[in-house]
């Protein structure tokens, strides 16, 4: 825009913003003040503890220490029973324990009972299936379709 045209605008005073900008900034500040301190002092320690539990549980699962995995995820499920990943990992651990065990059917049924409350995608069903011993797969597929 040419210099002479620019001078047609009224020159604004420095640092003077419209009232709604001040109100907006105040509104954002209030929301931030309500959320952030409460989050940092009250919620964050709980989240950190939970995160450490999740990491430990996931590590146990990767190391094929299924009894420990069940223990850790069970603690999480007690507090957050609808957490899908914990349900899945616990079920997978029970499925893995059902292989080479005399009480295999029992483990399989306990694992399966954990999955009845939620909807699962095909990829998730495939993941669950991957932990299952071959002898239970057919039963799993037929029962899961009915759910």
């Amino acid at each position: 825009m040419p210099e002479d045209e620019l001078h047609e605008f009224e020159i604004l005073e420095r640092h003077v913003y419209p009232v709604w900008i001040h109100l907006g900034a105040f509104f954002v500040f209030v929301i931030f003040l309500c959320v952030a301190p409460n989050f940092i002092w009250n919620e964050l320690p709980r989240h950190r503890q939970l995160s450490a539990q999740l990491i430990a549980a996931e590590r146990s699962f990767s190391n094929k220490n299924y009894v420990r995995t069940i223990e850790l995820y069970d603690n999480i499920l007690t507090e957050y029973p609808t957490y899908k990943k914990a349900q899945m990992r616990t079920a997978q651990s029970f499925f893995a324990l059902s292989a080479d065990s005399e009480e295999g059917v029992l483990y399989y049924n306990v694992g399966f009972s954990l999955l009845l409350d939620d909807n699962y995608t095909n990829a998730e069903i495939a993941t669950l299936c991957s932990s299952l011993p071959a002898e239970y797969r057919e039963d799993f597929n037929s029962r899961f379709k009915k759910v």
Partner: protein
Amino acid sequence: MIIIPAELIALITFPGVVVHEIAHRFFCDVNYIPVYAVSYFSPLSKNAGCVIHQRTDNVFHRFLIGIGPLIINSLLCIMLTFPAGMIYFLGTDFVPRHSMAMGILHFLLRWLGYTIGFHAIPSNQDIAGLAYQAKSVFAKMFLFPFTGIIALFNINYIGFMFRIGYAYGLSLFLPALLWYFFW
């Protein structure tokens, strides 16, 4: 591919547009450059907002005014999305909120943070001709690639995705720092 009109994006993310213009205006004030007119947000307009200020030959001042949103919006985005970013980073975003009011406040803060971060990137117009105006070789060497990257962020569809990625990355920046250096 779904094309979302820029006007609609600006309307949904209007806090980011307002902060973007405030950032330009703020750096004009800091550098004592008179501001003639400011449109903080024009709903459903092709140009969502603008700051008209006096022309300056000082490349550094122009640069600061141009990248003002990159500084201010980015800092605000990091600050406002910290709770959301932290929860995501810790993998505990499934934890329910204790009350509906807190849930709404968390959602509002997240929306504000991400929309502000989304508009952190200067427009092509903000830094147009800056590299050509620079006199020193070093300034040119910095400004040419810089304006190139900014131009990349302003390409229609790719830019939209880059901006979302940038805001998302910003939200994880502080949690990642805390994680690696303090915990």
